[in-house]
């Protein structure tokens, strides 16, 4: 009897230990559940269970999401999500399956489509999401998002940008690992994650497979080291998403009668697939321009102390278009303005032409900015004029450590 008690106590302790320490890597079915008392609608309770796949589409766009036996990541470990069971058997089918997503995105009549995987999980202890992905043809593209149990009720997921943000060379026909810091999901309550969402925002069709979805307690992405290696931060390549490559908001601003419209356009590009097209009409009164944020709204400001200049490529539709370049730190952001480094002609002696030219502006030219807490980069149309400009490859060049130490010694 006592033997049984001792044995039982050992088993109980091992179970407690296993529960207390979240495995460093967890599969979907191993994630901690939603906190007790999380409010779910009746239909969410009936419809939603962990591991369920689903899609949404407004015709003529189409979506399909299924488990696939034929294509999977070899060498990975299988995970048996409820729907991946073979219904004809009482036990899980011992075969590896991936998730296959097929989409056709049309732009007509605000048509949309997307797919999701229900998690119903508390992700607070996780820092990184990884999964393997391969495309049928390569070049498939989607935006990644998450719903918490609140945003799910209003069908309003938080998106962190295109998959290109995590795979700079895009999806290919070979398996690649996508690593996403969960801190990039700025907004959702990470203790109450309802689903992982894949939304298709660019017109086109494609098929891709996802396998080995894993959640890790370790931070596996070190962006600063990547930037340090390249020597610059690419804030936006204007190729795939209206959020920039830091996952932050971009937009045009205007006060009538002046106006500015922005779009990602394939009409012109310096590199990649598209550039930023700004169509402006600056009148004698009002103001207009474009901004891209370095911080999340209400989030941490961005530290640019180790950077020396901002650079971008520009060309005009006609040539001779003009604008000034601004940047805002926390204080300028709060008052809704920016410090200007002067008109573009200051950095392009011949002005904007119909050819691509690089504008490179030392950050010190923006005046007394607090580089520790930076908020935005701004293109401001300040002269009464009308026109179209294209911008590509917005970068911040980083100082070398030798530069930094030299500046320190010089009292800079």
């Amino acid at each position, binding site marked *: 009897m006592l033997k049984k008690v001792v044995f039982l106590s050992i088993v109980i302790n091992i179970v407690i230990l296993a529960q207390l320490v979240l495995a460093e890597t967890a599969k979907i079915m191993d994630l901690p559940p939603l906190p007790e008392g999380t409010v779910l609608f009746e239909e969410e309770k009936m419809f939603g269970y962990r591991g369920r796949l689903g899609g949404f589409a407004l015709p003529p766009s189409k979506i399909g999401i299924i488990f696939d036996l034929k294509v999977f990541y070899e060498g990975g470990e299988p995970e048996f999500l409820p729907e991946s069971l073979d219904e004809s058997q009482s036990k899980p089918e011992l075969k590896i399956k991936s998730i296959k997503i097929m989409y056709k995105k049309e732009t007509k009549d605000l048509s949309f489509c997307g797919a999701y995987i229900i998690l119903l999980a508390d992700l607070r202890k996780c820092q990184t999401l990884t999964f393997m992905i391969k495309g049928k043809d390569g070049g498939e593209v989607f935006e990644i998002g998450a719903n918490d149990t609140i945003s799910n009720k209003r069908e309003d997921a938080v998106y962190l940008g295109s998959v290109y943000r995590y795979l700079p060379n895009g999806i290919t026909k070979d398996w690649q690992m996508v690593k996403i810091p969960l801190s990039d999901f700025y907004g959702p309550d990470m203790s109450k994650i309802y689903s992982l969402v894949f939304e298709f925002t660019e017109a086109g069709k494609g098929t891709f497979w996802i396998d080995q979805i894993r959640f890790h307690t370790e931070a596996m992405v070190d962006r600063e080291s990547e930037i340090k290696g390249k020597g610059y931060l690419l804030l936006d390549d204007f190729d795939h998403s209206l959020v920039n490559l830091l996952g932050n908001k971009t937009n045009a601003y205007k006060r009538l009668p002046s106006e500015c419209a922005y779009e990602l356009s394939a009409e012109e590009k310096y590199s990649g697939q598209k550039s930023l097209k700004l169509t402006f009409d600056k009148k004698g009164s009002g103001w207009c321009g474009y901004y891209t944020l370095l911080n999340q709204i209400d989030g941490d400001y961005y530290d640019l102390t180790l950077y020396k200049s901002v650079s971008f490529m520009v060309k005009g539709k006609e040539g001779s278009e003009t604008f000034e370049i601004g940047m805002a730190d926390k204080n300028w952001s709060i008052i809704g303005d920016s410090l200007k480094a002067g008109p573009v002609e200051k950095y392009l002696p011949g002005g904007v032409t119909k050819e691509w030219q690089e504008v490179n502006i030392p950050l010190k030219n923006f005046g007394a900015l607090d580089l*520790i807490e930076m908020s935005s980069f701004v293109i401001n149309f300040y002269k009464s004029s009308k026109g179209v400009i294209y911008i590509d490859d917005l970068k911040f060049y980083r100082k070398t450590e030798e530069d930094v130490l030299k500046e320190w010694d010089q009292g800079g």
Partner: protein
Amino acid sequence: MVNVKTCIAGIFLFVFVLFVCGISYAELLVDDFNKNTNLLGGRTSVYQQAPSRALAIQSPTEHYGDSGNALMIKYDKKAEGGPYNQGGWCGYYTILKKGETYFDASSYKAITFWVKGAEGAENFKVGLADRHWDQVGDSVKSEEIGKYLPSGGVTKEWQKATIPLDVFFLDFKELGSISVCFELDCFPGGAGKGTIYIDDLKLE
């Protein structure tokens, strides 16, 4: 009849499991300074108000242990100028919270790290902020660092600093950040300049 050996083995295993449980919660490496975020994924940076200034970069040449980086902080705390003619302020911080979710440190007893100075005799205080102090953009400061070092002050050799959490009167269930603060009263006349190295910042 109960086998006594089995019983003893069971008790040992029981104690071992509890011990492992204890270990898993006894220590948390917040930063080994080998990445540009801390190991909780939080942002790290300097703070400064002119004319004081600070610079933090990873040092591959100075590190505690066999490999990796340490954090090098250069500071230049002025005594005059800036707001209220107090010389401004400067320091370094590492964020513990994730978004608006504060870090629960209620199971830890101390902040520890390894520290050395470029010259020796450098000085600073350690700051800690809970939700309240985080929201006002400040922190509660420890005593001068020498109080928590075996030799009584920063030297050119690595020493382990151990700062008990109970010197800070804070809500440890909701911590926002840890900071290294070059305070006015750390230096004779209020001004001080130097370089320190920090490695293996932990909660124990």
